[in-house]
C-alpha cells in the first residue's frame, strides 16, 4: 500500500508541472534516439588523406583510390597532417614522393604496414578484404550506449530521494506510520516504470526506422527491461549512499565512464590487458553486451 501511495504521489507531483514533466520525459528519449541512430548509420569506411608534391600525380592517385568503396579520399594539408591524424580527420595519410608511397598514421607500425598493403592492392586492382574488424553488432553497441546513458539518467530521477530526505518529506511519511523501505521501493518502482517506458519508446522508434536491427521486438523489450533494472537499481543505491544530489550525479557519471571503459564500450574486451579483462566482470556494460550476444546467437544461430 505504501509503495503504491509513493508511486501515485510521484506521479501527482509530476502532473503539477506538466510542461516540465513532458520535457523531462521526452529529453532522454530524444537523446537515446539520436545516439542510437548515429551509431546505426555509421558506415564502415576509412577516411584517407593524400599528400603529393605533384598536382597531376595527386589527381591520378585520388581517382585511382576513389574506385575502392572502402576509402573516402580527400587531399590533406601537409602543414596540418599531424593534427588531422590526431583529431581523427584521417585514419591515415598517403604520401606520394618520387613515385614512392609512404603511410603516415598515429597507429602502430603493424597497422601502418597493413594500410600500405591495402593501398598497394587497390592500386594493383586486387580485391580488398574487409579492412575494419567488426567488433560488436549494432544491437550490442546500441545497448551498451543506452545503459551508460541511463546510468546517469536514472540517478537524476532517483535524486528526488535525496531532496525528500533534505525536505523532511521522508520523516512525514514515517509518521504515517509507514516503513522507510516502502518509500524507497515506491520511488524505485516509479523510476523503473518510467525508464522502461522511455527506453522502449526509443528502441521501438529505432527498430521501425532502421532495418539493421536483427532482434525482434520481444527480445529488444527484454533487453531494455534489463537495462532499466540495472540502471534504476544502481541509480537508487547511489542516491541512498550520497549526501547531496551533486555527489550522486558526479558519482553516477564517474561510474558510467569507468564501467564503459572497462566494460568494453570503447575497446573490445579481448584486446584489453588480462587484469582489466578480469576487472570488467564487475561492469554492468559487459553484462549487457554479453546478454545481447546470447539473444543474437539464439536468433541467428
Amino acid at each position, binding site marked *: 500500500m505504501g509503495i503504491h501511495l509513493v508511486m501515485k504521489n510521484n506521479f501527482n*507531483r509530476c502532473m*503539477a*508541472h506538466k510542461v*516540465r514533466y513532458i*520535457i*523531462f520525459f521526452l*529529453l532522454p528519449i530524444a*537523446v537515446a534516439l539520436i*545516439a542510437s541512430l*548515429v551509431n546505426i*548509420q*555509421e*558506415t564502415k*569506411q*576509412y*577516411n584517407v588523406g593524400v599528400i603529393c608534391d605533384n598536382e597531376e600525380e595527386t589527381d591520378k592517385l585520388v581517382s585511382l583510390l576513389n574506385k575502392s568503396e572502402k576509402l*573516402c579520399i580527400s587531399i590533406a594539408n601537409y*602543414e*596540418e*597532417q*599531424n*593534427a588531422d*591524424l*590526431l*583529431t*581523427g*580527420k*584521417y*585514419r591515415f595519410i598517403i604520401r606520394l614522393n618520387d613515385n614512392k608511397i609512404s603511410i603516415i*598514421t*598515429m*597507429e*602502430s*607500425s603493424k*597497422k*601502418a604496414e597493413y594500410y600500405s598493403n591495402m593501398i598497394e592492392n587497390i592500386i594493383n586492382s586486387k580485391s580488398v578484404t574487409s579492412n575494419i574488424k567488426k567488433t560488436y553488432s549494432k544491437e550490442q553497441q546500441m545497448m551498451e550506449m543506452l545503459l551508460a*546513458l541511463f546510468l*546517469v539518467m536514472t540517478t*537524476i530521477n532517483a*535524486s528526488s530521494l535525496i*531532496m525528500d530526505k*533534505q*525536505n523532511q*518529506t521522508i520523516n512525514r511519511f514515517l509518521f504515517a506510520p509507514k516503513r522507510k523501505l516502502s518509500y524507497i521501493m515506491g520511488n524505485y518502482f516509479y523510476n523503473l516504470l518510467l525508464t522502461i517506458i522511455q527506453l522502449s519508446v526509443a528502441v521501438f522508434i529505432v527498430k521501425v526506422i532502421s532495418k539493421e536491427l536483427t532482434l525482434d521486438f520481444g527480445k529488444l523489450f527484454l533487453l531494455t527491461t534489463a537495462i532499466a533494472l540495472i540502471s534504476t537499481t544502481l541509480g537508487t543505491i547511489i542516491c541512498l549512499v550520497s549526501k547531496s544530489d*551533486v*555527489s550522486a*550525479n*558526479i558519482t553516477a*557519471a*564517474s561510474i558510467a*565512464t*569507468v564501467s564503459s*571503459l*572497462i566494460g568494453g564500450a*570503447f*575497446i573490445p574486451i579481448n*584486446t*584489453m*590487458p588480462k587484469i*582489466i579483462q578480469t576487472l570488467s566482470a564487475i561492469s554492468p556494460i559487459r553484462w549487457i553486451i554479453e546478454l545481447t550476444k546470447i539473444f543474437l546467437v539464439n536468433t541467428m544461430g
Partner: protein
Amino acid sequence: MRLFKFYFIRTMKDSFTIGYSIIFPVIIVLLMGLLRKSAFGDLITSYQYYSYTLIPFCILCEITTVAYLAQEEARKKVGERFLSAPISMKTLVVTKLFAVTTALGICHFIVFSIFTIIFHTKFWGGLFLVFFLYQTFTLFTASLGLLLGLCTKNFIIIKNFMNIPIFLFAILAGTFFPISTVSTLIKLLVNLSPLYWINRGIFLCMYDNKYTILLLCIACNLLACAFLIAITVVRFRKEAFLYGDSFSYEK
C-alpha cells in the same frame, strides 16, 4: 581582496572539488592510457594523447561543480549576510569567478605537471600557450557555471541534463578515441563540439607548430567569459543566491 581570499580558501578546502579536479583526471588518463596502449604508434603514445584530450574534458565537467559553488551561500543559509554587506553584485560575481578560476587553475597546473613529468608529454614547445588555453577555458566554464548557479530559476533541471551534452561533446571531439567518420551528419556534429576545436588547437600547436586555432580558442573563451559575466551581473537573481538550493524544487 579579502573576499577573493575568502572564496579562494573555501574552494581550496572543498575536498570534493579538489578530488574531482585532480584525482579524477589522473585516474581516467591512467586507465585510458593503459587500455589503448596498443592502438598508438610512434607519433604519440596513448598516455600523451589522453593527457591532451582529457584535461579540457575534465575542465568542462567542472561547470556543475562551479554552479554548486555559486550556490554555496544559499546552501549554508548565509546569503542574506552577503547581500546586506556593502558589496556590489558586480564585485561579488567577479570576485567569485576569479577565486574559483584560480583555485581550479592550481588543480589543473598540478595535473598538467604530473602528466608532463610522468608521461613525458610534449608540453614544452607551446607550454605557455597550452596552459593559457586551459586557464581561459577554466575561466569560461567557471563563468558558465556561475551563470547557471546564480541566474537560472530551474537550475535543478538544467544541471540534471548538463552531463549529457558534455559527454556527447567529448565523444564527438575524440576525447576517448579519435572519431574518424565519413558520415556528413557526424562530421557536422563533430565541428559543433567546442572540445574538438580545443583539442585540434592543442595538436596543431604541439605537433604542427601552427597557433591560429589555439589563439582563436583563447580569444573565444575570453570573449564568451566576458559576455557570460555581463549576463550574470545583469540577470543576477537574489532568490537564487538566497534560496538557490531549494526554490525551484516542488514541495
